[in-house]
């Protein structure tokens, strides 16, 4: 490690230039050592400035790895950023902006980065070839044994076990023109689109605009190109309808021109400012999209081309020009295109000794080459790197002619800059189903026909010239605005640039042989692995990918896929376009799960639904339980009673007793309520419900059951006739939504001829059930408009209106508990007022509020079914209510009722269950069988659907269940078995109604 010795002193920082702010030094640490960098650095540039070149270990062979790129395509320099709850594994050092106090740790090594025991994998590398694991680990002691070790070795960084402390936010945006990419072509597009007055959004992944211009010594109109960028930004900022989002990555192109983008609001800070989200996930719906995403450089696979010090040529220029860092002191440049010369010139200008430019192409000339020669730089044509010296860092390389005409010659160097040409970033174009075509001249896939409303410009389209990129940008921006309906003025004229003529690329993918030649550096896929995959028949690029894991790393093969595919094409002896490329998928670069979740986290994961009496419940000892989105009182604890099993049982028993012997009040606001009006309302109900509704009189309520079209019971509830053409339907809490949707379906689509209208009034009415022998007295006492609620005036299933404490209410005499009971509906904002009035009126009778538990017990005592019974598989007959089905009319689901399975006499049907010993609880979820000792797999008779562990009314445990044959078996005993808890209870089959079968109480 030549460079290693100079750590910590910015020894590789250039005295001038770059985008860094030398006045703002930032201290940071890597593997516990502290260093300083400057504002404007990335972690990668700051490390290089400090001479740190060894930063990571590779996935499989744990080979030492350095910094390979200067952008999002980085395969090697992955670190754990931050600590504790904010630890972010696999963070690309090349994208992590430096901030004061940044802490980074190398990953996937033990015990240390410089000495990693797992590097033995590299020595064993000859055995650990692609797919080796499919061929072994099958024998003793079994895969599980080996897997534990493989799992421990695999993976890269460590996640955290602490909850993510940061906020995330979703942003929704609409625009006429979205431009992805803030390089010259994107800026040019934004300019012409913006000037038209169209709504324009420009998103740029990095922290600033300019794209490659930030990294090149280009000029525009005779001045540094970045001046043009600054002027352009100024104008864009002055246009009211143009929004520029930096640090924002368009990660996916979805249907109907919706682009997903993630804005890193606070990742460049130690922690986000208070209340500010760490990241925002943008939904951008654009009329037109301009893709100016640039191009990604690729390398050439030569032996040991993964050593720290081997770097993409474009990255070398970035570190020099953008970050003012010398990535080395002596460089060899190897390229198959003119960027080699461009890079050599930049190196020389930065004071790096350029040992040689190795051009894999045969001799030839170009402006770039002439400039190099003029600068006195050694150039070797038709040659390649055949060997790299050094393990933890490059100390030199061997160079030999490709035609083997001469022996390899050693060249000392600590930096090898490599350019294998460019691949346009067509990712988003293909997400949108755009086609790609092979361009022989560029040796790259370029965008073909678009399927959605987008166009690619600049390097993303394979246009590598600056002037031409700007020209394309101007044109595409204007065209997009026009297509969106915003006329534009004539195109601005393209500023003058100084662009030396280039000589075309000559594709070459791999050179040399012997040692490991890496195609995919992150997943350790070598040239030999490609050959092996071919040999074994994994010749489709998709098979190649899955067999070798080519391009399956965090970088998704941005620098490597094309090399592997080209090598496979060579092996197959077919042209590259015929072999094709693997499918691009979102996200373009990895996106944090938290960003996708946005604000839908913790309590806000799903909206909470609260009843109008919620605060009263909370203030009066309610223990809440979730029911769908609702929070419902499960039971009420007397003041000061700590919660717990015993306290809960006592509370529930007390609540049941209160209702059975005196009076109780329960919040039933969660039941769905649907207001139905119109001349055909009765006909609608008659078709929806299995039982008849035509004969229901005004002022009366009726219980109804509705089926699905497939004949299975859907929902039940009471519907009341409030007026000649006016009904109020109630549904169960669980089905409120889908019953409403069903009614809209039948009215709008199936029976549009019916003159009826329906709307949900669930939220309008707070609903409470006053139940118990004393219910009438309490109600009468609470009513203040003298409405008569005597049995004569308001009989069972009667409906009336009244006023309670000044509030106009609806009163329904219906019963779920089986007691004399009144359901009172009050306008929601007055719900608590009415509730309190009833509680006051009930004080004389020791009224108690009761919750879902007590309600559940009482409905079981009455044999009422709920969703525990109506589980989407039972028929009317199964519930014992088959006779309710009207034979006089047609109703939804009737067409299915004669299916053999539905009429099978052995179907499990609803019954009551009591323990033979009168004591033992019958757990819900138990299975009913003849003989618990029978051999497994054993035959089943049915199951226990609901259970009241102790029925305060009956005095012993009871349960509801379904048993084959149903009440035919009344009196027989079967076993309720619960093998999960090793329980078996002998139970007697009884009638499902345990309390007041004649219903005297509720009619009382």
């Amino acid at each position, binding site marked *: 490690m030549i460079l290693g010795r100079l750590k910590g002193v910015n020894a590789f920082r250039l005295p001038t230039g770059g985008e860094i702010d030398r006045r703002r030094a930032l201290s940071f640490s890597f593997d516990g050592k502290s260093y300083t960098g400057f504002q404007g650095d990335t972690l990668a540039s700051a490390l290089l400035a400090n001479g740190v070149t060894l930063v990571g270990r590779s996935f499989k062979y744990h080979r030492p790895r350095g910094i390979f790129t200067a952008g999002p395509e980085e395969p090697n320099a992955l670190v754990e950023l931050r600590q504790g709850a904010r630890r972010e594994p696999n963070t690309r050092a090349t994208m992590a902006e430096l901030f004061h106090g940044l802490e980074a740790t190398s990953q996937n090594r033990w015990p240390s980065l410089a000495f990693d025991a797992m590097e033995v994998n590299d020595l064993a590398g000859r055995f650990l070839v692609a797919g080796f694991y499919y061929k072994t680990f099958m024998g003793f002691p079994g895969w599980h044994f080996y897997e534990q070790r493989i799992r421990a070795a695999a993976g890269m960084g460590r996640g955290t076990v602490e909850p993510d402390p940061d906020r995330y*936010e*979703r*942003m*929704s*945006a*609409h625009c006429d023109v979205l431009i992805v990419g803030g390089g010259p072509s994107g800026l040019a597009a934004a300019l012409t689109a913006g000037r038209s007055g169209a*709504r324009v959004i420009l998103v740029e992944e990095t922290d600033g605009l300019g794209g490659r211009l930030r990294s090149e010594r280009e000029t525009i109109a005779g001045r540094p190109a970045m001046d043009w960028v600054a002027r352009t930004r100024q104008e864009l900022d002055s246009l009211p309808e143009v929004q520029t989002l930096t640090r924002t990555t368009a990660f996916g192109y979805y249907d109907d021109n919706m682009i997903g983008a993630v804005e890193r609001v606070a990742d460049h800070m130690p922690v986000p*400012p*208070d*209340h*500010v*989200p760490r990241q925002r996930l943008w*939904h951008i*719906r654009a009329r037109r999209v301009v893709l100016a995403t640039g191009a990604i450089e690729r390398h050439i696979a030569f032996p040991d081309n993964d050593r720290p010090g081997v770097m993409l040529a474009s990255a070398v220029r970035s570190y020099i020009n953008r970050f003012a860092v010398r990535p080395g002191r002596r460089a060899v440049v190897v390229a198959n295109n003119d960027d080699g010369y461009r890079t050599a010139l930049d190196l020389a200008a930065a004071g790096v000794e350029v040992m040689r430019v190795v051009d894999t192409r045969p001799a030839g000339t170009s402006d770039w080459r002439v400039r190099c020669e003029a600068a006195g730089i050694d150039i070797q044509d038709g040659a390649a790197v055949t060997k790299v010296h050094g393990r933890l860092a490059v100390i030199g390389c061997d160079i030999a002619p490709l035609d083997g005409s001469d022996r390899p010659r050693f060249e000392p160097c600590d930096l090898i800059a490599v350019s294998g040409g460019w691949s346009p970033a067509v990712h988003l174009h293909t997400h949108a189903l755009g086609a790609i075509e092979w361009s022989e001249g560029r040796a790259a896939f370029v965008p073909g026909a678009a399927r959605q409303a987008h166009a690619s410009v600049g390097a993303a389209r394979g246009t590598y010239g600056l002037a031409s990129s700007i020209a394309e940008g101007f044109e595409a921006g204007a065209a997009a605005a026009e297509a969106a309906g915003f006329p534009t003025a004539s195109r601005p004229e393209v500023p003058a640039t100084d662009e030396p003529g280039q000589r075309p690329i000559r594709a070459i993918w791999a050179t040399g042989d012997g040692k490991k030649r890496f195609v995919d550096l992150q997943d350790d896929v070598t040239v030999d692995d490609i050959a092996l995959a071919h040999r074994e028949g994994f010749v489709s690029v998709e098979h190649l990918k899955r067999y070798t894991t080519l391009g399956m790393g965090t970088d998704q093969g941005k620098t490597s896929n094309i090399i592997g595919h080209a090598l496979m094409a060579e092996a197959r002896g077919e042209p590259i376009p015929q072999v094709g490329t693997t499918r691009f998928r979102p996200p373009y670069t990895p996106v944090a799960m938290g960003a996708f979740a*946005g*604000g*839908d986290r913790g*309590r*806000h994961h*799903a*909206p*909470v*639904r*609260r*009843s*109008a009496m919620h*605060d009263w419940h909370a203030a009066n000892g309610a223990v809440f339980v979730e029911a769908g*989105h*609702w929070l419902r009182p499960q039971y009420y604890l007397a003041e000061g009673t700590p919660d717990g099993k015993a306290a809960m049982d006592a509370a529930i028993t007390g609540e049941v007793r209160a209702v059975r012997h005196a009076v109780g009040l329960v919040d039933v*606001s969660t039941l769905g309520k649907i*207001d139905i*009006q*119109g*001349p055909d309302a009765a006909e609608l109900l008659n078709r929806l419900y299995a039982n008849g509704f035509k004969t229901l009189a005004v002022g009366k309520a009726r219980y109804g059951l509705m089926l699905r079209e497939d004949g299975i019971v859907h929902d039940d509830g009471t519907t009341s006739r409030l007026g000649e053409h006016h009904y109020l339907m109630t549904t169960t809490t669980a089905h409120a939504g889908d019953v409403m949707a069903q009614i809209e379906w039948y009215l709008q689509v199936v029976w549009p001829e019916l*003159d009826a*209208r329906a*709307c949900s*009034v*669930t*939220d*309008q*009415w*707070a609903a409470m059930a006053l139940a118990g022998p004393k219910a009438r007295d309490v109600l009468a006492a609470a009513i*203040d*408009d*003298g409405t008569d609620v005597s049995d004569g005036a308001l009989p069972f299933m009667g409906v009336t209106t009244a*006023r309670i*404490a*000044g*509030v106009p209410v609806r009163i329904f005499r219906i019963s779920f508990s089986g007691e004399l009971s009144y359901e009172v509906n009050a*306008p*929601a*904002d*007055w*719900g*608590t*007022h009415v509730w309190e009035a009833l509680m006051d009126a009930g004080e004389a009778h020791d009224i108690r509020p009761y919750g879902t538990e007590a309600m559940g017990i009482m409905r079981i005592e009455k044999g009422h079914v709920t969703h525990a019974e109506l589980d989407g598989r039972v028929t009317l007959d199964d519930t014992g209510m088959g006779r309710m089905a009207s034979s006089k009319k047609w109703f939804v689901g009737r067409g299915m009722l004669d299916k053999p399975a539905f009429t099978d006499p052995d179907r499990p049907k609803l019954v009551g269950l009591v323990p033979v010993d009168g004591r033992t609880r019958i757990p819900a979820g138990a299975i009913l069988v003849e003989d618990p000792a029978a051999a497994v797999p054993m035959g089943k008779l049915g199951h226990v659907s609901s259970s009241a562990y102790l029925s305060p009314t009956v005095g012993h445990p009871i349960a509801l269940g379904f048993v084959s044959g149903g009440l035919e078996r009344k009196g027989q005993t079967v076993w309720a078995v619960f093998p999960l808890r090793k329980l078996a209870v002998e139970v007697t089959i009884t009638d499902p109604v345990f309390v007041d079968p004649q219903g005297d109480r509720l009619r009382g």
Partner: protein
Amino acid sequence: MVDLAPLPPRLSPFAALFAATANDPNPGVTLSARSLDQVQIDCATDRADRIALPLPAPGRAVSHDGMRLISLAPGRWIVVKADAPDLFDRVRDACDGSAAAVVDQGHGRSCLRLSGPNARDLLVTGTGIDLHPRAFAVDDAASTALFHVAAILDRRQGSATFDLHMARSYAAAVAERLIAGGRQYGVAVTS
């Protein structure tokens, strides 16, 4: 007939939440709870012309003699007004002869007014519709999803003032989201 107790004051679903919310001195967004009467009209589209009210076209809202009329769907509108116990009768009478279903929703939907320079920035974190002034002008209205809850958005006078009508049981949950998201701009709540 015995003499009746007067109508009690209404309990807003935002009461507890707002009481517990600290106000920012210079808020970017302000949430105001509005206690309104609301009546929903549901009418066969071919009979809607018989309704004696200036009913707005789809996607629009109009103010008319103290009332705010908002279109929800073909043949479906809501009429809202502050402290108007007579609103229901008034609307029912206006609908006379149209056979419209007239339904009281005054307590079913709670109204929150959102205003302030950052009102739009906050709303777009919860809804996908286009709120740009070009696309959603004063007196435009939309039924949409806001933080996964069905909401009616009504753009009022002013650069960024919106009335949100939401199912009462969900209203507090939405308000919680708005307050949490609004903190970065500064929030104030008024009852």
